């Protein structure tokens, strides 16, 4: 998960937006209740808190992802559940018979 995803901000978010998102996140995950999550949020914030840091992150940040990292990202990408059209459901029923 990228630090932007971790804080739930857009990649072009401003310093203020990032700080607000960070403060909200640490309210949701205080260190005494969720120390690991808090640590991850803190690390994410430190990577992107200023324009300078964001540019540094974009230029030099090196990271070897695991399958888990990527799947976690994919899980975040899940859209709203969609019901099938009548036609699709009729077709599915036909195929299952």
């Amino acid at each position, binding site marked *: 998960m*990228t630090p932007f995803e971790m804080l739930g901000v857009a*990649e072009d978010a401003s310093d203020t937006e990032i700080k607000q998102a960070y403060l909200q996140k640490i309210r949701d995950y205080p260190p005494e209740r969720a120390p690991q999550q808090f640590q991850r949020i803190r690390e994410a914030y430190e990577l992107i808190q200023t*324009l*300078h840091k964001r*540019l*540094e992150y974009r*230029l*030099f*940040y*090196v*990271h*070897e*992802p*695991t*399958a*888990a990292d*990527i*799947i*976690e*990202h*994919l*899980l975040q*990408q*899940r*859209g*709203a*559940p*969609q*019901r*099938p*059209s*009548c*036609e*699709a*459901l*009729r*077709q*599915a*029923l*036909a*195929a*299952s*018979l």
Partner: protein
Amino acid sequence: MSKKKPANHKSGSKLQDQPAAVLLQEAEALAAKGNYRDAIERYKILIKREPRAEWLSALAQTYLQRGHELAAKDMYKEAAVMWENRASTCGDSSEQATYLEWLLKAGRYDRAMYLYQENEAALSQTAKNLPALFGALALSNKAPGLRQELAKHPAWTAPLALAESALRAYCEGASAEALETLLKQIPFRSPFRDLRSLLKALALLDSNPAEATRLAAGIAHDSPYASLARLLPKPVRFSVLNEAGHEAVVCPRPDQEAWVAALYGWNPEQVKAFQALTLPASAGQAETGKAQAKAGAFFSQVLKHRRGLGEDYVRRLCYQWIPHLSAQALHAFERTFSVTPLEKLTLSALTLEHNREYSQALPLWEEALGLLKPQLHDPDKRLQAALIQSRRIGLLRYIDDDTLADLEAPLQQCIKWQPEDKSHWLQLIALYRDAPDSKKAYAEWADKAVVQFPKEVDVLLTAVEAANQRKSFKKAAGYAQAVLKIDSVNAKARAVLIESHLGHARKQFKAGKYEAVTKELNHAAQYERVAAPNPVLRINQACLAYLQGEHKRASVLLEEALRAAGSVVGGHALIFLESQQVGIEPGKLSGAFGRKATALLPGWDKKYLPPPKELARLPRLLEPYQEQRAFTNLLRLWDSWLKKAADQAFESDDLIGLCEFFKKCKEYRLLVQYAHHGIQRRPDLPLLVYYECYGGVGGDNRWLPGIMENRLEQALEQAKAQGDERTRRLLIHFLSERPIRSPFFMEDDDEENEDENEGEDSKALRNSLDERMAKFQALPEAEQVRRVFNGRMPSPQELEELGREGFLRKIFEYLMRGDGEGDEGDSPFPFPFPFPLPSKPRRK
């Protein structure tokens, strides 16, 4: 296309010739083995010959078995034909329900409907699922004709309409409550009963997956909706495949995958990405052996499924990942995404850095800077350039190319491109501070930094330090005042201000203006913290009291000073040094203290052994006096104390602090003494080896004998193994080659002074000694020892007794005299030995 016939198949004419008994035996055997087709062929021949009842019955049974066999292979059309052949040949029309199911599944709806209407009463008893199958087929788009037929039938009209509207309502997004109202209208005995459960489960899938699972599981396995229901519950549809415990979308029916995934919010590309990335072969990180290849394959999978994962995400991910991978990964990345020349250079440089090829990464970063330089009018590009230059600086420092010449221009560029980055300013100022001959630049850049960061305490304190170093005490006091405006309790700024007023007070002392002294000391006292009284201020107040005849008050103030110093030895040393600064003989002040005149003089009590903690405070207390003659005198007086105290059990930090102090004061004998004893107790500290060797050669690495070089090399390895970066750098600097300088000139002598001070004789002497030293160093170590000892090899005992300093002295003697072995002529030095060793520096 010819079909391969089974081994027991015989041609028609051959079978026709077989006797009935043989044919019957074969037919029974084949049917028993499940080869119904060949069994039927034989029974048919037998019946043609003679239609015996038992043969007809056996044929009917075999037809039915063959029908089931075909239906199991989804060959319903052929299965229905088997039933029809059975009815026409054998006159057996039983198992109608089975036949109807086959007809429906074969798409022969008209015939099925006709038969069902003909035999509804009987079929409703024997085939309870048939109506549900009719209903499901009518709802599906598989049998539009059947839907129309059923709609005409009075018994079907209402349930079909209800089912249709419920299905439509679900698909059009009706709420669970609205759908429930519709579904409730479908009666329990309706052929659409299971559709009711299915639609309810679908509607609850997102909001109440447990209930959805329960409802789906409640649909009987022989229901026409069972197959669809089995796709829905999460435990069935998703299976845990990767080590992180993530669920992968794995649909048991690939043809149904798209709409099922959409129910959970996934699009087909995301599903494909899920499936590819959760396969055990690509999931997880390879550790050994084929790690690179495995990581490369995983990288390819991610690139391939970039649409499902998100193009932007994959681009960023791969950009950060490439430095860990092989060159092929960069090529694949370039083929997939458009890559700018700057990005390509950055990726290549990061890859080299990742592989610890730092020196090779440097030119690539320079090339990247070259690409940015024409675009520096753009603020973003300027910032990028500053960041890249900053990275270069980091690399240069890491590979120890960190002299002023290496870093000055890059740091100045960083400041120019990104003046708001304080760290570059502080780095440049520190560089000037530590480099010889840069005192002016040091002060200038510190002043410029204050203009840029007027409210930054660390910058102001750096400027205080720089001003103090230039002896611009007024300026330093001004900066310290600025610090106190921001940080009113800043101890360093307060100390500077106290010292500034004390400096003025000392001048007034000498002028005998005691009123002015009082004023200055009172000003200084304003900055004193109640919890941390300043011993130097107390001593100066005591001096003033003494000079004004208030001996008792002076005595009280001196007692306070000793307490404030936190060290009896250090406090006495301060009294000794401070009283001399204001023109009072320490002995006289001692009288005021109510003790013997000598009581305050360091070195008076020769039996006194200062404890380690007391000595550890000396560096902090005495550092400001290092360059004073009185301080040198003090150390001479303390010599025996200090040497005696060296063998005590110091804490490592205290010991290192003392060694550093002696190194700064150029007290090399004491430095060797403390480092040597320290090594006995703490052989694990390579820094102590550095101090011992540094002191041993008077801080000049030209005099390093091979044995010391070996020890330093070992210490370097030890520091590397311990991850002790500071010691590693000190050792590398000390061991690295330096321009040869004469040991007769101190480190802080600049070239200008050398030229001014050095006469012709000295120059000739230097040149001659430099030449001899170079020749001497070129000799093998054993030969060096032999020459130093006038052509003989000394015994180990003799060497031990001689000690390091004695050995160095021998080298000097050798260089002075020459020995006729390659060094011709008389001594280059015009007066006899002893010659001043570097350990006794000449002070300015």
